[in-house]
């Protein structure tokens, strides 16, 4: 063990790791929000509830059908994504031309309903979900101990985030999405089924939240309020990164996770507020966010 700025290395790297883990979830969730906002013009306030639904789906799949972590990592996001698409078809599609506030209120209401129903059935104490067998244990890196599951969370989040970025910024499908964000009427008049693309995009954004929820199940407790606790921070991340910016969501997600972790080491009293202080400064200096386009 050695010291950096008078702080034992294990403590420093331990907090850095926690920061990266939190950052992995911030990035995944704010990425989903950015994708949804870019395409649908909806501020998806039910994102936290959909993240929680992902974790509960994994829990229920294990309890009632014996489906373990790895299949749940696919099945739960697909199921929750489908519920998202149903919500989009039944409710959200009527709000695109209205002010953002309407979409925000509708999804906020949905979040309250989903959370209330979950609390009614499962209480608020939280349910355990164990780390999958193949990822138990950890590596001793000399300067710190790295649990395998946490390493997996970071790698999986980075892969999904940059995979999504690549698809949107570098492929034909992504070009269609970007064009439809800019001028949906013209893209549709070229023969592209834009409403279907919007439904699938919402489903994908919601599935990302659910995917994060499944990954979070063994790290945090599976509880009805797990989403609402996280979503406030995630919205701050989105505001800092710039609403609708894909790369901004990813970089600020990880970056703020790390900053939060380091604050716990150097100035613990501020660790709960540091993200919001940064948000306030960014809003004053660059209202469109660090990576946002001025409109």
């Amino acid at each position, binding site marked *: 063990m050695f010291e950096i700025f008078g702080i034992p290395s294990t403590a420093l790297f331990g907090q850095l790791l926690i920061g990266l883990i939190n950052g992995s979830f911030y990035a995944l969730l704010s990425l989903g929000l950015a994708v949804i906002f870019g395409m649908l013009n909806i501020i998806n306030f039910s994102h936290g509830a959909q993240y929680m639904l992902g974790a509960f789906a994994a829990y229920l799949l294990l309890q009632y059908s014996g489906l373990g972590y790895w299949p749940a990592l696919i099945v739960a996001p697909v199921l929750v994504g489908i519920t998202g698409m149903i919500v989009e078809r039944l409710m959200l599609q009527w709000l695109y031309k209205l002010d953002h506030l309407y979409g925000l209120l509708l999804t906020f209401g949905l979040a309250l309903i989903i959370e209330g129903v979950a609390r009614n059935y499962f209480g608020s104490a939280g349910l355990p979900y164990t780390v999958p067998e193949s990822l138990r244990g950890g590596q001793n890196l000399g300067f710190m101990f790295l649990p395998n599951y946490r390493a997996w969370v970071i790698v999986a989040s980075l892969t999904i985030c940059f995979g999504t970025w690549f698809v949107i910024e570098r492929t034909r499908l992504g*070009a269609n999405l*970007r*064009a439809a*964000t800019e*001028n949906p009427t013209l893209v549709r*008049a*070229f*023969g592209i089924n834009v409403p279907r693309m919007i439904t699938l995009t919402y489903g994908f954004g919601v599935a990302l939240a659910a995917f994060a929820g499944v990954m979070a199940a063994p790290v945090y407790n599976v509880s009805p309020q797990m989403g609402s606790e996280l979503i406030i921070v995630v919205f701050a991340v989105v505001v800092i990164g710039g609403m609708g910016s894909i790369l901004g969501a990813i970089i600020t997600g990880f970056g703020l996770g790390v900053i939060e972790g380091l604050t716990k080491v150097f100035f613990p009293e501020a660790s709960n507020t540091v993200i919001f202080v940064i948000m306030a400064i960014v809003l004053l200096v660059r209202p469109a966010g660090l990576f946002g386009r001025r409109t």
Partner: protein
Amino acid sequence: MLDARTPLLAIKDLQGWYGESHILHGVKFDVQEGEVVTLLGRNGAGKTTTLKSIMGIVGQRTGSVRFEGRELIGLASNQIARAGIAFCPEERGIFASLNVEENLLLPPVVRPGGLSLDRIFDLFPNLKERLGSSQGTKLSGGEQQMLAIGRILRTGARLLLLDEPTEGLAPVIIQQIGKTIRALKEQGFTILLVEQNFRFASTVADRYYVMEHGRIIDQFANAELDANVEKLHDYLGV
């Protein structure tokens, strides 16, 4: 197959609205296969709205739009495009978040028989040079217009709706666009053109329809243009 007398595009009693305002009041005209037909008229006569109504991108429309004998009035705009009609809007519609190549490849191929990229670059050599360019909207106005026309030639659509392709462009570019329209006609494309600039239109069109207050009020062939010039000046207020 269409018989020789069935028009490629037949429009009857077309009514169109933008929100509350009723713009088209029973437009009726047709376009034969292989023709270049121009809609002339003053600002606000309903020319652009006619194109948008054919394409299904106005708020509300009624009447009949038959393409290759098939009724399109009840279809969504993506289905109309898939039927084989392509639209080049007045504002050109180049996407800022797409590079030049992505803009060019954006409209999907709706049927076989579209031009290859090489053929498009033969028509618009500038586009090939600008292919590596970062943002579609960084091109000059003329290049953006070429990109807007070029990208719909790939799709295999047989009917092209061009909304004021010469607006705001330098004379040398206008000439190039005129040359392109004639080349496209030779290759069997059918073109419905909206123009304010009837001197330009006279270099490419086979027939003209004149619009006023959301109706067709006159029509004549290119051969009859000289006999109609005075009347036309009157209609267009020039």
